[in-house]
């Protein structure tokens, strides 16, 4: 029981990130970053992957705050009250959903373009 509660910040952060991360988006962005890993010698890959995990968790947190900023900007327009009006709440929910879906799509197009560019580079290096 106690041990459970004393989980360190890293496992808590990882659990948070795992809950938040939509499957497709996380996978595709990871593909782009794996190129950096493959260029490293074997003995550095482990430490790098640890650092990478931290960077990805940090990035998830940033996504959280970016989303908040976007949706606040677009949805919250009046300050007659301290509480969010129901239409503002709905707007925020839709805004977040739309952003995450768009983000997934951006990741798909991004990795397609990156792979195209990689193939072009390889063709330039080995013209056959």
């Amino acid at each position, binding site marked *: 029981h106690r041990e459970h509660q004393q989980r360190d910040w890293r496992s808590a952060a990882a659990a948070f990130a795992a809950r938040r991360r939509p499957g497709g988006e996380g996978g595709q*962005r990871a593909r*782009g*970053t794996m*190129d*950096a*890993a493959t*260029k*490293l*010698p*074997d*003995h*550095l890959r*482990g*430490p*790098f992957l*640890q*650092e*990478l995990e931290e*960077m990805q968790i940090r*990035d998830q947190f*940033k*996504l959280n705050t*970016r989303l908040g900023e*976007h949706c606040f900007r*677009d*949805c919250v327009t009046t300050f007659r009250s301290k509480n969010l009006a129901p239409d503002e709440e*709905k*707007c*925020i*929910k*839709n*805004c977040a*959903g*739309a*952003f995450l*879906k*768009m*983000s997934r*799509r*951006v*990741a798909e*197009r*991004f990795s397609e*373009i990156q792979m195209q560019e990689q193939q072009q580079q390889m063709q330039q290096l080995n013209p056959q």
Partner: protein
Amino acid sequence: GGAAQRQAQSDEGGAGTATGRMSSFGLGGGGYRSPNDDMQLKAAKMEVELVQDLFNRMSDLCFRKCINNKFKENELNLGEQSCTDRCVAKYMATQKTISETFQEFSAAEQQRMQQQGMMPPGGAQ
């Protein structure tokens, strides 16, 4: 960036294996690492940061330009989907053009400084 990394890896040579064995004794990040190792790790980290930053900015901009701000629905309609696709393509193309322009500019700057005697020929990369 890439060229420097490749040169660093070929410099490792024989010394690389010794430090490789040494650093695998330590626990993960706590083991000994040569300054060269640290440099490579930093370069890899910075590359990841670059990609993350690019991706985040692109997402933010395409969201502002393509996605309707009224948010009556939780889905992307067809227009928003194609706008997103084109936005990504154009943003990447923009970034590529900027990188090329920047490289040309840097090369020209180097030449200019060499001619003015401010830098030895065959200067730093």
